[in-house]
């Protein structure tokens, strides 16, 4: 079990694009060379801004809902796990449905792998690999009640995907967390805006 006390806080403002998270994800004992973190340059022409994407661990995970093989499980502590190998049919529904773009179907494995919050580490009280090494601590794993004192930005765990409200275990750090963040996920939900 991962302690409910501990949260994962993502602050893109701090991200320096160094890809330590991507490098270290592959090094976590159970990940065996597979990195499940996306690190994107948002618009390099305009800015050095980069954005790390790790799984948000939804309360009601859309990837699991969309999985025809029932291969994606969420444990009681709120962690949404990688697909179960015998069940996963590599159909990519999860890849397509995730509003955050997290799951990756690895072609060599014919299996979807995604951030499992380094379950082998966090269930023993350690921090996930990426949040341990992150030089700027744009990825922070810390007791929820301490974050207010640690950071100027505030955690946000509610997102509107069109009109669908998605609540997550992990948080995005924003200057103003009072209202859920609209994720303009493209034309599919354009009518909602």
């Amino acid at each position: 079990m991962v302690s409910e006390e501990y949260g994962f806080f993502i602050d893109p403002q701090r991200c320096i694009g160094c890809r330590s998270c991507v490098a270290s994800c592959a090094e976590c004992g159970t990940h065996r060379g597979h990195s499940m973190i996306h690190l994107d340059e948002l618009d390099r022409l305009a800015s050095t801004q980069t954005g790390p994407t790790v799984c948000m661990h939804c309360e009601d995970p859309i990837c699991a809902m969309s999985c025809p093989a029932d291969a994606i499980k969420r444990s009681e502590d709120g962690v949404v796990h990688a697909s179960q190998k015998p069940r996963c049919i590599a159909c990519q529904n999860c890849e397509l449905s995730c509003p955050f773009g997290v799951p990756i179907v690895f072609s060599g494995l014919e299996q979807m792998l995604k951030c499992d919050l380094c379950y082998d580490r966090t269930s023993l009280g350690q921090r996930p690999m990426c949040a341990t090494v992150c030089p700027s601590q744009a990825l922070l794993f810390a007791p929820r009640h301490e974050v207010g004192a640690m950071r100027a930005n505030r955690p946000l765990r509610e997102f509107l995907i069109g009109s669908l409200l998605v609540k997550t275990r992990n948080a995005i750090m924003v200057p103003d967390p009072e209202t859920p963040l609209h994720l303009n996920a493209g034309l599919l939900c354009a009518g909602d805006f």
Partner: protein
Amino acid sequence: MAHLPLTPDQLRAQFGPHLNLAPPGGWDAQTQPDKVVATHCCFCGQQCGIKLKVKDNAVIGFEPWEEFPFNQGKLCPKGVKRYLQGGHPDRLLHAMQRTDAGFVPMDWNQAMERTVTEIQRIQERFGKDAFALLSGVSLSNEKSYLSGKFARLGLGTRNLDYNGRLCMVSAGAGNKKAFGVDRAANSWADILGAEVIWVTGANVAECAPITTDYIWKARDRGAKLIVVDPRITPLGRTADLALPLKPGTDCALTNGILHLLDKWDLIDRDFVREHTSGFDETLAAARTCTPEWTSRITGLPAAAIEKAARLWGEAKTSFLMHARGIEHQSKGVENVNSCINMVLATGRIGRPDCGYATITGQGNGQGGREHGHKCDQLPGNRDIENPEHRKYICSVWGCTDAELPRKGLSAQEIMNAIHAGEIKGLLCLCFNPLVSLPDSSFTREALEKLEFLVSFDFFLSETAQHADIVFPAALHEEDEGTSTSAEGRVIRLRKAVEPPGEARPDWAIMVELARRLGRGRFFEHFTSPRAIFEELRVASKGGTADYAGITYEKIEANLGIFWPCPTEDHPGTPRLFEGGTFFHPDGRARFIPTPWRPPMETVDAEYPVWLTTGRVVFHYLSGTQTRRIGFLVEQCPHPYVEIHPRMAERCGIREGDAVEVATRRGAIVLPAKVVSTIRPDTVFIPYHWPGPLSANVLTARNLDPVSRIPEFKVSACRLTRTSADRFPPELLELRRMARMASSLQGSIPEQVL
């Protein structure tokens, strides 16, 4: 003559760089380590703590070392993947000699004999100083100390210098002038409580990534961040005030700030009166530096200069950090002193939350520049021309004054002397001058003129490819020792594995060479790094960089000790200058006037664009190590030229186009990276690559008159769009390898490309 024995392609096939993608045995090996060794990263001056996992004498991975106070587990991608060097197929395992058929293994004993014969032949014919030693500060303190002693007493040459000459040597000289000592004035802990943080000429996010978190922690408590850089770096992007000044105009800005601090009466006059000297002359030199004048020189708006002066002047606490951006200039030392002037004027030093530091770049850039590794220096940061200092070191070493050479040439000047035929032989270790010195065509010509070059290296670097004899050396994790981080914290490097094949630590090779040169009596007691450290402690005693009270055990028990630490019961000194006491005999700090002067090369009609060079987060220095690690090459396979869209449009250049960048030294063709995060009048090229990809084909051998640092950061160039078939084959090959490495991710057995 030291021409390449084979074509570059043949050398590459045999010695790499190949890419190591996965740990020994592959990702699926699921190996449990035999042991976990807590040591430090081999890259960069932050010297992050890291634990290496070891199985069957191979490093198979890492664990974050969360207890180590500096980085608390944090690592940049170089640190994460550094373990892939260990079992690398490019490792040199035997002594080799160069023949017409390429490098062939040579019996160790014969390699030693040939080396000794050549050294003696050259020195007998041309004099002792005709054989030089170039070394580097990725070496431990022990090896750095030994390099200095070996050059002076083993070879008897005055011509020893080190690659710190390309690093923080301007900062060292400026600090000695101002403070009488060369060390970061504070541990990084003092960043956390600063109200204003001034970062100038330092791409912190890429070159000292862990420092980013210190700065953000201060900002979370309300600190304002000012970043001075011709580019909007990843940290600069978020700054409260970014000052993208014209390359080479740094001390015009700092003089302008000093002028405003005085005009607005934001000077700590009590501190200046009681703890410093030289203020009036320094202020007088800045008298004409009005915001309008400063704006004209730097290209910054006057309002931004005033805002910066306001933020800096009105703060109660502050931390100023600089790095190579201001130091790699023909007025590097003046730039450093102009920053120190700003700090001293506000009296914000030597107190909690008030600090100043250069961010040392190389692994042991701090410790390696303290103990006689430089052409003008003896251990303890003593002066080789000071009779008292010489006398003390002669007493420690058991030699006569006549046996101890005088001041020699600096690194670039050694290369110039080789080119001029004055120096005929060279021992080169931990230094890849063919990539890292400016004007690399000149460096190549010089290497080709050497009568004898001997290298110690773990991989065959581009410089070592010109060697007559190569001895296989040990990696960082294959030896014990200490290093000193950018903070001035002396830390323990632990041996995790034995060196492979016949590879041996550099110190052991040097000691054997000294013995065979008939100088064994000065070196034979060095049977371990610890034995060298014990002598270093004595030799540094009473110097400014005093390690006398530091022991291996004390470092381990305290997770590092800050020098000066004169006695064993002394706790070390994280913060210097407390109570306003500086290291000059009168206890006062010095203001140094820094009147502005232009860079040695400026833009003109023929070469109308400023060129600046630097690093990326994925590579370390000349790339000998990082260009062999799959993940790092995948992220940044080759250099490029950053061009502002406005400049690109003027030259008809689009993203990805082949661009010829030409200076008075030469020309290279690289892909354009069109970004608005650089001044429109300036282009940037990262420098980690050799041959036709080397930014240093373009840079000039213009040196600072005091520090002898080359002006890597300011050149004048010309841009021409050209055809893609002019991309060097080396670039296309790197691109291919990176793509291949990328496509293999996810299905990786043990793989080497």
